[in-house]
Every structure is written in C-alpha cells, then in structure tokens.
C-alpha cells in the first residue's frame, strides 16, 4: 500500500474488524478491504452498497455472469481480480 494512512490509519471500529478478518482468515487483509475500511463514510460504505446491489441484487444477469464481467473488466485494466 503506497499511502501509509490507508494501510495503518483506520479508526477503532474498522481496526477491530480488520483484526477479526486477519485472525479468522489467518491471512493478510487484502488492500482493497483496507481501502474500503478507511474513512468508510467517504467512499467504502456507499461503494459497498453500490457493489452489493450491482453484483448481488435483482438483475437479468446471473451472479456468475456478473462476476465474469467484472473479471474481464479487471483484466482489461491490468488489475488482478
């Protein structure tokens, strides 16, 4: 993570959630999660609501098809999905 504050600067509730994720998964928390948990009222919370509706909400596309669209788009952006 290039921005130190997004890596380590979380507030207490998010810090506890990150700790829980780390303990339960026994893995390093992915950067995207740390980004969504940093000042969540600015970006993470509305972004998660948007993603939940788009990727899991009612749609003519199945969840699998939507995940495929996302993976393909990430590939075009040279971003690991």
């Amino acid at each position, binding site marked *: 993570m*290039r*921005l*130190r*504050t*997004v890596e380590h*600067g979380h507030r207490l509730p998010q810090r506890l959630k990150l700790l829980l994720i780390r303990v339960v998964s026994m893995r390093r928390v992915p950067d995207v999660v740390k980004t969504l948990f*940093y*000042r969540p*009222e*600015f*970006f993470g*919370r*509305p*972004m998660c*609501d*948007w993603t939940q*509706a*788009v990727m899991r909400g009612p749609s003519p596309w199945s969840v699998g098809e939507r995940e495929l669209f996302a993976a393909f788009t990430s*590939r*075009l*952006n*040279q*971003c*690991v999905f």
Partner: protein
Amino acid sequence: MDNPSGRYAALTKRLVDSVLAPSGHMASDARQAVLARAARLGGRPSSPLSQRERGTGGEDIPPALAGYVDKVALHAYTVTDEDLAALKRAGNSDDVLFEATVSAALGAALGRLERGLSALRGESSPPDPLSTLGPHPLTPSPFGRGGTRE
C-alpha cells in the same frame, strides 16, 4: 434506461455525493474537478453537463496532480511508488492523495459507464480517448502483468 446513470442511479448519486461531500482534506471543488476530468478521459459523453460539472475544466487541479489524475483515469496500473513519493514531497498529505485517487477512479468509472449506456441506447460516441494513448490494455507487457512502465 432513460437515466444516464442507468438502473442504479440512486446508489450512484449517493456514492458521488459522498466523494464530493463538503468535508474532506482536499477542497470539494478540487475533488469535483478531478472527477469531471477523469470522467471526460473515461469517455463521458460531452453533453448534457450536469450542474455540478459546469466550469470544471481541470483549472482547479494543480499541474502535478493533474498528471497523476490522468494516469489513474487512463492506465492506473502504471502508477509507481515514485509518483506518490513525488506528490508527497510536493506537500500533498496521504488523505489528499487518497481523496484525489478515489475521485479520479470514480470519475473514470462513471465516464465509462455513461459511454457504455449511451452506446446501448444507440447514441454516437466521442472517439475513444484510450485509442490515441499507446497500446491496447490487452497488449502483453514486456514487464509482466501489471508491471508496465511508461
């Protein structure tokens, strides 16, 4: 599909409003200018402009930050540690850079979304801004995945 933001317009509006909220480390006007600049680069159809976007031609963005915004909007995988280090040396805090990055990424995404929805409605599109800016993203990189240098 009459709304330019599509089926999820309400959620999209809430997301944009949060990112452009008055409180923050970077001025809201500057975040708005970053978002509008990235949306244009992402292919946002040039009109109609919403009230928010009028008068934001990128003039509120410092030149050094404008280069970074363009990079995030067009080929974010080329951003380097040195890009961020230089912006920090120029006096930008982590929070300013976080807000600038989110604004640029969201703007680019919205530009692409609006361009795609506009194409589905059968409207003509402006030229693809990516087509004049080097190889297609699927071109294999000599530096490996995600490791392309400029």
